[in-house]
Structure formats: structure tokens, C-alpha cells
């Protein structure tokens, strides 16, 4: 029986890899069934289960929270997202990152930045050292 190689990966790890006789995936425009020898296709996935029917007839369920599905005649690649994504969610995350940066710049006086203090201390110590060295040389 013809099989198709299935690779399911996310940005953080390889989730599942193996051969299957049939793959079902929750495409954005509807459920997709992919058999070996499928035409090259690329689509976005909605959150849901990717089902792989293995050679021994067993089914494998892998949950994906969205992503991209790429089909080549002998390989199916699922590039899974690691989190539920959406335009609005992304937007909120972006705003948060921006706010953090702005706040950091604004309250420079509020709390003494530890890392900064450390850096200043280190440079002060270096200065003292070189002064001491100079003194020794003069003597």
C-alpha cells in the first residue's frame, strides 16, 4: 500500500514524524483528506486535530493550534503554531512589547536599575585600579 511521509513540527520541537496511508487535517477552508500522490498544495490550518492513519490501520491524533500545511506528492509537512494565533492576539502582544519598552525608558529614575548600577560599579572599580597602578609606578 502506498504511504506518505508525514512530518509535524513546531518552532520549538519536532512533534511527530512517520508514514501514513491517509492524512486528515483541519484546513482553514474545510477538512482536508490527503492520500499519497496528492498534488502540491499549501494551506493554513485552523486549530484542531491532525489525523494520520498509519500503515497498520491505527490512527494517530495530533492536536495543532493552527499553522501551515504543505503537501508534496510524497511528503506532508505540518508547520504547527505553538500557540493559538490570531490577528488581534498578535496585535495585543505587539502593543505589550512596545509598552514595556516605553515604560522602561520613562521610569529611568524610579528604581535603580541593578544591571546599570553593576556596570557603573565595574567601571568605577577599573578606574580605581588603574589609578592605584599609576601611583605604584610613580613610587
Amino acid at each position: 500500500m502506498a504511504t506518505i511521509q508525514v512530518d509535524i513540527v513546531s518552532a520549538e520541537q519536532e512533534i511527530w514524524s512517520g508514514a501514513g496511508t491517509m492524512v486528515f487535517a483541519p484546513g482553514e477552508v474545510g477538512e482536508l483528506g490527503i492520500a499519497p500522490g496528492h498534488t502540491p498544495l499549501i494551506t493554513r490550518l485552523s486549530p484542531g486535530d491532525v489525523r494520520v492513519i498509519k500503515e497498520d490501520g491505527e490512527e494517530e491524533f495530533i492536536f495543532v493550534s493552527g499553522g501551515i500545511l504543505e503537501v508534496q506528492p510524497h511528503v506532508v509537512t505540518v508547520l504547527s503554531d505553538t500557540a493559538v494565533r490570531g490577528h488581534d492576539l498578535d496585535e495585543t502582544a505587539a502593543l505589550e512589547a512596545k509598552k514595556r519598552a516605553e515604560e522602561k525608558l520613562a521610569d529611568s529614575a524610579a528604581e535603580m536599575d541593578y544591571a546599570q548600577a553593576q556596570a557603573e560599579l565595574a567601571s568605577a572599580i577599573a578606574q580605581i585600579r588603574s589609578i592605584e597602578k599609576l601611583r605604584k609606578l610613580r613610587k
Partner: protein
Amino acid sequence: MAGAKEIRTQIKSIGSTRKITKAMEMVAASKMRRAQERMHMARPYAEKMRHVVAHAASANTEYHHAYLAARESVSNVGYIIVSSDRGLCGGLNSNLFRKVVGDMADNHNKGVGINVCVIGKKASAFFKRYGANVVSEVTDLGDTPQLEELIGAVKIMMDDYEEGRIDRLYVVYNNFVNTMTQKPTIEQLIPVVPSEEVETKHHWDYLYEPEAKPIVDTLMDRYIESLVYQSVADNNACEQAARMVAMKAATDNAGKLIDELQLVYNKARQAAITQELSEIVSGAAAV
């Protein structure tokens, strides 16, 4: 008898410092192994992504994405700077910052504006002090960085590119070569540098469902994100490796210092005994 007691206290205190650095070294070693694993685990995604993007770019797509075309004039650039949250890792962060500041100065002299996105506390503190235009920031990623936490910061830079506020985007991180070597690296993210592998001319294209534009858009966003995540994972492994090496050096130095002090201490003790003896002897002679 001068000093013997002080020396003993000093030996003791250096001894406990050595214990701490030794412990930190071992912690860093085990964390490094895990960080390396994470770094390798992220590889397949980036590789698959690269293939798909290369396909999509060379296939006769009717839609060309903005990230694929280089702009002629560069008037602003963006940097995503990846650093560690914690210190005590040798010159890891300072080497990186030195490199990027040099690059920034070059750009500045050419009259190119600079936007910065910082990842990690060290970069945040440094570039605030440096006076760079920090537009977004992520800190406290911890030892297991999650892609989720990076999305927002990266999106700001991508939006900046799309809306023309920057014309080029770089990522700056430490590349993990091996435990002893971490290489500060500046890599161009956008426009996407075509991969070196020569793609044979495709005469086929994907079936896009529903259509090319949204899919290619998503693909590109994910691709850039995965590259940034990869750099964060790399930098994390570098941080642990650098810390391990730095702590090992500290432990060795503490050992050396203790040996030296021990010698001084022994001498001082010996001198005290000799002195006491001679005092007794001369005392007895006087009687």
C-alpha cells in the same frame, strides 16, 4: 603574631566562594545540555520552513511578498538584539554589544536611522544607557524561551518594515559554535537572503487554498519568527556555556588563591613558633 588569624578567615571565605562558583558551574553545565537540545529541536521547523519559503519564492507565484524584495535606498534599519537576562557569563554580552555598536556606528555615520528591539535584561539596560531608539522589549524569558513570548516584539519590527519605517532588519545574537566558542553574529532577516542551495527552476506551483496572498503572508511571518526563536535558543545555549566556562575559571582561580594563602599562612605560623621559641630560650639564658 600578625596576620595568621586574618589569613585563616580569608582562606575560609575564598573556600566558600569556590563552593558557590563550583555549584554554578555544574548548574550551568546541566542547563547547557538542555539548552543545546532545545536548540537542536528547533532546527527541523526552521529547515522545513526554509524549504517551503524557497519553493514559494521560486515557484511562479503571482504574488510577491514584501520581504523578498530588497529596497533600493536604505534610510532606516532595525536590529533585534538577543542577550541574556543574567550576568556572570564572562564577556558574552559585552562582546555582542561591542560588535553591534560598531555596526550601528557605521550606519549612523552613513546617516541611517536605527530602531532597536531588545530581548533580555542585559540588552535592555545597555541600550537604554546607550540611548538607542528602543521600540520594543522582551525580558525574563527564563531558561525555556517560548516562541509565544517573542511574537509581540518581533511583530513590531515586521510592521515597521511593512510600513516603511525601516528598510532592513537584522538579528543580533551569539551563535553557538561549541562549548568554548560563542560567535557574536549579525544576520539579515528582512529582506530575506536567498538561500545558497541552487533551486532548480520550478515549473509547478502549489495549489493555494484559499489563495496565495494570506498564505504567503503567514508563511513569511512564521519564518521570521522561527529565525528569531532560533537565535534566542542559540543565545541561551551560549549563555550557559559561557557561564560554565567563566565559573570554571573562577573556581580554578579560587583554588590557586587558597594554595597561595595556605603557604603564607604556614609561613606565618612557623615564624610565630620560631619567635616564641627564641623568646623562651633567650629568657632562660637571662635567668
